[in-house]
């Protein structure tokens, strides 16, 4: 295997007696897009700052691009940061901002000029912007200038600190697509911090979910989505149904019982159960809303839920139902149709494949 571009082992970070990071070990492969996800205060930004060299680590080691980063200041690291608030220099023009890393590296003027123009093109920025100041650009344009500045010297690692959190939803979507495209195009390793798991899933090759200074789960987006390590990760995105259940080990698999869910054969295979689930203990069955469907009269499914429609929301591509079932509210997303299959107060039956179930620790 090719050696990783970032190798963090056992990183700890203390602020006084407060432990911000504990035992962080992870590797980022060359050219990989890794997303660091977690609620605020989970330590993802601290970790990013440690990678950038803005913060020292209290224990552990960090190797980037084959070099131990101990004692190496931010200015000498093979990383570049895109800041949350962009941190464009207000007194420098767009050209000066983008060319700044090269200017510091004392590259010849002509080379800087060429590089800046290349970045401008890559970021779909107009050439007439070169002599403007950041405040004369729109939010999205500023975003691109910030990206261009951090990419201009072709760093091996790009660190992104929630740079899109301040943008409106539509602009965010289009920039996310562009970022993904950019990553593919330049081949640089990206470490992207976000609190938005949806964004992370869309962009990243792998996602590192953090909570209270620890890594909870590190894996591909589908793994995070379909096989979350625990209820926290499962509930981190969208309206996830987590149904209380009891599981007992039966040979290789698990038998479960759940009041709400009626299954013909309540058995889970070993890979349908998160590692942390204790045999014979309480668990939660995770059902993503889009895995449920409305069962027409007389049709059956491997698992069914009976309930009454509380509310529904027509969202265009999908319709979301909120259904009361045995004292719990179940969320279901079905593909949008012009004729509404069920209305408020209707008694409904929901169906689901046994293979779509996944049990996490309660």
């Amino acid at each position, binding site marked *: 295997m090719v050696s990783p571009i970032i190798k963090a082992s056992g990183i700890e970070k203390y602020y006084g007696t407060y432990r911000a990071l504990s035992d962080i070990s992870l590797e980022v492969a060359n050219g990989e897009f890794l997303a660091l996800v977690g609620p605020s205060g989970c330590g993802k930004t601290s970790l990013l700052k440690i990678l950038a060299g*803005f913060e020292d680590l209290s224990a552990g080691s960090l190797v980037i691009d084959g070099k131990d980063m101990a004692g190496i*200041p931010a*200015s000498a690291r093979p990383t570049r940061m895109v*800041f949350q608030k962009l941190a*464009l*220099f207000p*007194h420098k023009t767009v050209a*000066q901002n983008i060319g700044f*890393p090269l200017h*510091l590296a004392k590259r010849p003027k002509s080379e800087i000029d060429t590089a800046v123009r290349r970045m401008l093109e890559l970021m779909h920025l107009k050439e007439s912007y070169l002599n403007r100041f950041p405040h004369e650009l729109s939010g999205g344009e500023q975003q691109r200038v910030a990206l261009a500045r951090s990419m201009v010297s072709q760093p091996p690692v790009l660190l992104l600190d929630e740079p899109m959190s301040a943008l409106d939803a539509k602009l965010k979507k289009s920039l996310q697509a562009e970022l993904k495209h950019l990553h593919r195009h330049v081949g640089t390793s990206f470490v992207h911090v976000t609190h938005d798991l949806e964004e992370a899933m869309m962009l990243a090759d792998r996602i590192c979910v953090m909570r209270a200074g620890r890594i909870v789960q590190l894996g591909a987006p589908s793994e995070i989505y379909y096989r979350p390590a625990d209820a926290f990760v499962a509930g981190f995105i969208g309206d996830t149904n987590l149904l209380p259940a009891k599981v007992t080990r039966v040979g290789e698999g698990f038998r479960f019982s759940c009041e709400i869910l009626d299954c013909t054969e309540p058995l889970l295979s070993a890979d349908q159960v998160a590692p942390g689930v204790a045999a014979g203990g309480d668990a939660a069955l995770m059902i993503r809303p889009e895995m449920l469907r409305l069962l027409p009269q007389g049709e059956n499914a491997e698992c069914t839920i009976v309930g009454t429609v509380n509310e529904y929301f027509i969202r265009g591509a999908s319709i979301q139902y909120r259904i009361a079932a045995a004292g719990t509210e179940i969320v279901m997303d079905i593909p949008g149709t012009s004729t509404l299959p069920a209305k408020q107060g209707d008694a409904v039956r929901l169906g689901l494949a046994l293979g779509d179930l996944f049990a996490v620790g309660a």
Partner: protein
Amino acid sequence: MRLSTLPLLLLMGLFFVIPLIMTALLSFQGTQYYRLVWTWDLKVWTDVFSQVHYWTIMWRTLVMALICTLLCTVLAIPIAYGMLHRLSRWSDHITLLMVFAFLTDAVLKTFGWVLFLDRSGVLNGTLEAIGFPAASVNVLFTPNATMIGMVYNLLPYTIFTVALSMARIDGDLVLAARDAGASRLRAFVEVTLPLAKPGIWAGAVLVFVLSLGVFLEPKVMGGGTSPLAAELIRQSFETRVNWPLGAALTLVLIVIGAAALTVFGAVALWQARRVAND
């Protein structure tokens, strides 16, 4: 003109324009038997423009003010930066001490300096105790002592304005410069310094205006042998009881100050444009 500016205009008129007009009118009068006589002539102005020594003192005042402004600015930048970034843990204490010193009566502080710098003073005593020859620092009652006093008394103005403007700089901008490969010094030069410019200019202008009017420092620390404009004006009003002359010299000082400020402003503007076009 908006109505809301009226109180300000009234205030300016009352406390600035009207006294200025009165001073101007006073300069066209004469004195006889130590009393003001309403002569309405140009005698005082003829005197002002025919006496070289008034202009020697004015010129000296201007030069001292410019040097003082330069020193205060150059000193304030590292001090303010150090307070904010290197000694940030102590910056509250330092600020408190500075405010305390700043609010202490200027007369007391100035006399303190006399006792400190005197040939038989604290400084020379200390130096002598560690093996230097007696009275090795002979700076008291020289223009250099005046400058020490001026810089000491006016430095807080520049430190506070520069620190204020540095504190308002987004810390991420410095980090961004560091991240882009800049050393601490380079990040300071490329980011902190240009962004602190408004504070630096404000402090410089403030100190310049104040240093044009220094009185205590040349008189007490400078030993009175190199009087500056304020002492000249005091002497005209008090010792010579020649109010029209004092008024005329006051106006000369105001015009010199205003002219210097105009040049200051022009340079600042030119600087800003140059930075923008670079």
